[in-house]
């Protein structure tokens, strides 16, 4: 029963956080001077139909929220407005219908644009995360096991250096070197490659993924090495390791059966917390390598001042991270028997 309560609590909390992000997203784009809807209305690039569509969709003629005509807090409006007729609820309603607005730049629905890109980002982050976790964990284990030897110092310095590299800069350097050595200079696939047979298509994508994934791996493996090393060092100094040794177990057995599981637990938490930061990395990498993902969408929409896309991409990324955090939390609670209820 306690476990179920715990799960419900965590899920409920995630939903609340998503709600918070929705509200934040809405108000950010209304409060801040670069209000997209209104700016868009004035944007000469938009066609007349689009402007009208925006007005309807965003309800720009309606009050923002109950009691407030606009965001000017001094100018109160009527408090008896049907809440469903306010901009905020129109916004929420739109979201629930999967309606994220229309891109200023391409006039396509934002939702459609981002849907394609979501998977590209997941592909990139997925591959990068897996690799950096594997490399980081292995390096961290060796560093801790052989503490205070050359292996340890080497691993430590490498990780600290890797961590200190700005993601986008590493990407630039690798791109520079890569383009001089025949690797593609950006994008996910060579134009026209969709006509090729699947194997060759995937090889092509693989070639394009190589450098961005490498950048991602180098930057994040540093952090994982450090966490794993630190966590394993703590575990290996615990009393139960001495007990295991006294029982006659070999070093390998002790590492395998006693140390690693305990040491990995904090790593799960860190991976979860890190997800927010890895998105920041993805943003930079996609910008440098022109990778068609959500991060790239954010980058391009900033450059082009395409606010609907920016708003939509931010929302999507935030929700994805919140959900990933939830999954990590729940996984942790299954792994650690000490977690019963908060």
């Amino acid at each position: 029963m306690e476990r179920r309560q715990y799960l419900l609590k965590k899920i409920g909390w995630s939903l609340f956080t998503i709600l918070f992000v929705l509200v934040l997203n809405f108000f950010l784009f209304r409060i801040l001077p670069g209000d997209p809807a209104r700016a868009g209305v004035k944007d000469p690039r938009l066609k007349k139909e689009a402007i009208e569509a925006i007005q309807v969709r965003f309800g720009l003629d309606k009050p923002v929220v109950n009691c407030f005509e606009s965001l000017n807090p001094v100018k109160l409006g009527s408090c008896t407005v049907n809440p469903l007729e306010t901009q905020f609820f129109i916004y929420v309603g739109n979201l629930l219908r999967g309606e994220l607005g229309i891109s200023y730049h391409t006039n396509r629905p934002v939702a459609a644009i981002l849907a394609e890109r979501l998977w590209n980002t997941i592909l990139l982050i997925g591959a990068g995360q897996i690799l950096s976790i594997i490399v980081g964990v292995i390096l961290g284990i060796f560093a801790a096991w052989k503490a205070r030897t050359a292996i340890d110092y080497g691993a430590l310095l490498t990780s600290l250096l890797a961590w200190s590299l700005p993601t986008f800069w590493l990407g630039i350097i690798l791109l520079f070197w890569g383009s001089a050595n025949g690797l593609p200079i950006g994008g996910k696939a060579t134009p026209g490659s969709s006509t090729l047979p699947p194997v060759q298509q995937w090889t092509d994508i693989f070639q394009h993924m190589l450098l961005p994934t490498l950048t991602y791996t180098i930057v994040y493996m540093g952090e994982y090495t450090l966490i794993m090393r630190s966590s394993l060092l703590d575990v290996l100094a615990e009393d139960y390791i001495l007990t295991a040794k006294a029982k006659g177990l070999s070093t390998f057995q002790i590492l395998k059966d006693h140390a690693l599981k305990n040491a990995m637990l904090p790593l799960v938490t860190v991976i979860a917390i890190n997800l927010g930061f890895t998105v920041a990395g993805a943003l930079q990498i996609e910008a440098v390598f022109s990778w068609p993902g959500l991060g790239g969408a954010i980058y391009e929409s900033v450059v082009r001042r395409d606010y609907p896309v920016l708003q939509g991409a931010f929302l999507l990324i935030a929700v994805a991270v919140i959900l990933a955090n939830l999954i990590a939390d729940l996984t942790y609670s299954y792994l650690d028997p000490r977690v019963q209820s908060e």
Partner: protein
Amino acid sequence: MQAIAESSKPKTQSTSPLLTFWRTFRRNPMALVGLTMLIIILLLAVFARQLAPYDVTSSANVSTADIYNPPGGAHLLGTDDAGKDVLSNFFFGARISLIVGFFAAFISVFIGGVIGIVAGFYGGRIENILMRFTDIMLVIPDLPLMVVIVALTKPSLINIIFVIGLLGWTTTARIVRSQTLAVKSRKFVLRARAIGAGNFHIILHHILPLVMPLLVVNAILVISLAILNESALSFIGLGDPTALSWGQMLNYAFGRGAMSAGAWWALVVPGLGIVWVVLALTLLGHGLEQVLNPRLEFHHLEPGRPVVQSEARQPVARAEDGRPILLEVQNLSVDYVTAGKPPARAVENVSFQLREGELMGLVGESGCGKTTLMLALLRLLPPAGQIVGGKVWFMGRDLTAMDETELQTVRWNGISIVFQGAMNAFNPVRTIGDQIFEAIQKHTPILPEDKIEDRVSELLELVGISAEHKAHFPHQYSGGMRQRAMIAMALACNPSVVIADEPTTALDVMIQAQILELLDSLRKKLGLSIIFVTHDLGVVAEMCDSVLVMYGGVTAEYASVDTIYNAPRHPYTQELLKAFPDLSKLDKRLASIPGYPPRLDQLPPGCRFAPRCPQALERCHTQPPALHRLEGTHVASCHLLDG
């Protein structure tokens, strides 16, 4: 009232925490390198105007021919997309990046620190609200949010500083809160309350000084993150166009064809600047963390030191009464070796014999070496420990001469240990049953699994725990139950000798009685020999056949229990007995021994007990006493027994 003996006066040099910190800091290579790197770049930034060969603010003397000139000649590091000198821009760029980093970090750390201390200290609803808010902000991805906010507002330097600052406090808040909670629960805070101190006084004098070190380490980390964030924002095009930070330099270079022009200098140099600063801060931060929060100096899987082999004296197979001798320790000496200091002798020349079925008590106070002695028997010493003399004979085999593989067959199988404070002696994430299973399987691998499971249940029942508990985790057991489970596990492989290291020290007196009774009955039932390590003379009197009294690493006295209690010859044993309360003799006044046990690195020349001994002679202070053989197995090391 007796004044404190000379040997216990503190050294004349005071070591304030600040001084201790500086000394440790000086010896940490990471921290020093980081600090040096940081100082260098700070100096470059401060003296940018003096160091820069060109004035980068004016466009005079710049033409299109100057764009992307390679390094060399007039420009040491080449020119950028606007024809300006890269080196000069580098120095000025340092200023921007560092200013943004430090100011934004200052805002973050301040907010995070206040939130953390308030949440941690006041608890309750306030803590709940603040921490929930922090969790939300932690989950929302930083950089995208920063991008959104800066994109919607003006990309000015002040703006960027505020945005980075106002979004960067979450890690600080969490760390400060958990540290505040940890400090708040420490006894000296309770004491402060008990003397009447108010909240403000406690926060100022007790919480803050202990949270500060961690806060400083975190602040350094936050500065580095702020610098990385600023450069990322600038690279994306959201930097202040009037302030040419390193990130901004990279933005222009990347966006204005540096790659296709092959102008690697415009891309590498600003980036290296960022790497230099962030690496400096990272090294400094990690070094500081090691200094302020030092970990234990070793872990249990580090390779140990080789045994210094000595000449073997054949072990005695049988005692005078005919009983076989299972364990014989001959003149064992153990050192602790640390680099840069002379070795500390933790155990010196200790000998004893353990007969079949005998229960020997090993008595001594803190620092007497009893735990070291026990660990040495099974070669479980920490990496700094080294057996430098003597032998350990177990059933005719020399444990000091075995290699690790051979030792693994003797451990637990022949000799097992019941550790003290069973809280962490068990792995908290594995079931008790599992951990007992593991021991059995290791030493009898041919036994089928179900048979092993049966044996696990049998063992638990033997110590009074119902078998259903084997699927439970250590934290689900009470303290007394855990100690019993530890005993069950120690018996799993039918050892001949069990070492019980202070098994009841942390337990209530009734639970202690239960455990002692259990041990005694098991001993009789299974024919075990037990070495019982303790400081409690009452327990030893109740249970033991023989007693080894240790002081300062040496044998003070070794005899049958009756002799020790009724005819002790060593002054330490005599004084210890006088200091131990005896409910059967209420009229006795409790004596104390002035001073305190010697530290391993400050052993007195001569007899270790001489500084505190009421019967000390002249030579006791200069010459170590010999071990005198009295009747039977009774030995004592004291000059009073000379001739």
